[in-house]
């Protein structure tokens, strides 16, 4: 797979504070790459350096294997931190201005406004927009030039649940058309739902990097409930059980490696118990994130 972004030993120091410390990272074409980390872990500083608004103290990076320049930035759509537009210009005019800066034809403006559902409000001044509309306009602006890479920094920050869902759907829609997306967030649930790969930053250091699927690897946990008095004994009898815990009326069965949910289901059925609830629980990214953070402390 083609390498879209390659970062080598990227470092940024603000006086005594090291915001990003010798970061090495690679993003390949087609990935939806989640950049995770607590607040102040250096996510935005990293993205700022990648977009040339922050000068790195040391290290380098390349986009599409080329030395970064403002021409390359035109191929990248980026929203850092929060949406930035001229408040006295309408949404339409802001996008016209951005089209001029990106040197792309303005024909695409109507399309992207449609995509983010802002067509009705396009002639209203930007300062009259709600936060969700501002975020959506920022995404529209990032998509204006039909970029191959999209950088989103906390795109759901400050949005209500409906807004969050809208942005998430939008991100998935964009990922589905094959764009590479770099998504910085501290909302782990969000990253788990949309990303294919993720990296964790803490105090400017990279402490984990890998595919999201990996989170689900390892032993499975099955949540079971059935109207049967002897369920707990039966679960313990199952050869694949390594532990059983009772939680809120459900039994959480941790399976040994190479055993799966269907094996437990078959075992129960053969023993005359029909479960009315049986779910293979995915290990949450949140759990893993906290594990990794505590390991490195």
């Amino acid at each position, binding site marked *: 797979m083609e390498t879209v972004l390659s970062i080598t030993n990227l470092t940024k120091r603000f006086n005594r504070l090291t915001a990003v410390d010798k970061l090495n990272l690679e993003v390949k074409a087609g990935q939806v790459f989640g950049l995770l980390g607590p607040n102040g872990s250096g996510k935005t500083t990293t993205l700022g350096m990648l977009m040339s*608004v922050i000068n790195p103290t040391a290290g380098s990076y390349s986009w599409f294997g080329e030395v970064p320049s*403002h021409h390359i*930035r035109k191929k990248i759509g980026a929203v850092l931190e929060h949406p*930035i*537009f001229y408040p006295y*210009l309408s949404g339409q005019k802001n996008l016209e*201005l951005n089209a*001029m800066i990106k040197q792309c034809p303005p024909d695409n403006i109507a399309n992207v406004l449609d995509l983010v559902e802002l067509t009705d409000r396009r002639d209203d001044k930007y300062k009259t927009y709600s936060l969700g509309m501002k975020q959506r306009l920022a995404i529209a602006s990032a998509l204006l030039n039909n970029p191959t890479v999209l950088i989103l920094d906390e795109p759901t920050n400050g949005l209500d649940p409906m807004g969050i869902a809208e942005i998430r759907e939008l991100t998935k829609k964009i990922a589905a058309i094959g764009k590479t997306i770099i998504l910085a967030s501290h909302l782990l649930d969000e990253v788990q739902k949309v990303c294919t790969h993720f990296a964790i930053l803490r105090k400017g250091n990279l402490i984990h990097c890998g595919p999201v699927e990996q989170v689900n690897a390892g032993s499975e946990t099955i949540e079971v409930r059935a109207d049967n008095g002897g369920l707990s004994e039966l679960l313990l009898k199952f050869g694949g059980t390594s532990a059983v815990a009772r939680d809120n009326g459900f039994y959480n069965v941790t399976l040994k490696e190479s055993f799966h949910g269907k094996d437990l289901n078959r075992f129960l059925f053969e023993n005359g118990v029909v479960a009315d609830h049986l779910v293979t629980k995915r290990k949450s990214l949140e759990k893993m994130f906290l594990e990794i953070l505590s390991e490195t402390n």
Partner: protein
Amino acid sequence: MLHLLKIDLKKLTSYRTFWIVCGLYFLTLGFGAASGMEFLKWLVSTFESFGQELNIARIPLYHFPDVWMNLIWFSGLLKIVLAIMVVISITNEYTYRTLRQNVIDGLSRSEFLTSKILTNILLSLMSVAMIFVIGLVTGLIYSPYVTIDRITTDLEFFPAYFLEIFFFLSYALMLGILIQRSGLTIILLLLSQMIESIITANIDDYVPWLIPFFPMKSVWNLITFPLPRYAFQEIQDYVAIGSILIVIGWTFLFNYFSFLKLKHSDI
């Protein structure tokens, strides 16, 4: 180049403050320049009430070629209004953080600066054109003799006027980029002349040769106060090469400092 100018104009032409400030500037410039005759009439009536007589014909404010230098000197006083507009335009980019977004969207930092400088050049050229037209019209109305010779005399003050305006707008742009906050920048802009005067007054006895090199002083020397000539005094009725070079030097430095600051700071 034109592309960059268009970008900056796109930002400004939908900005109401820009139209108000520029409208006020060009209106004041136009009416101010055209109402010198009214001032003379007021002067005459004041003299009369003291029992003195003043002959307007002896003060040929609007006669070719005097009209050029007179108008240009007085118009130069208004450049502060245009400079404040430039300060608002650049500090807005910092307060809205749109400079950052412009760079993210693919404008290089030097392209951004160039777009601002091009607007400064355009505003300076518009001032020149405005004063040229007013000078031509009033000159044609009030001059007793109109000859091509008289009209074309002293036109060298126009390039000097352009330089004066562009110099000052470059200074305002630099202050805006260095300070980034509009209020503070405007205060410093207004105080610049006074601060420089205080410094020059204090070093006058030690290094008098240095004083013509001070920025504000160099602009005063570019186009000198024309009215003493009507009181039979000698004035510098030409543009001195030395002053031109000093003003060009400062203009270049101001824009270069803007460039350095933009290039090396995190935005």
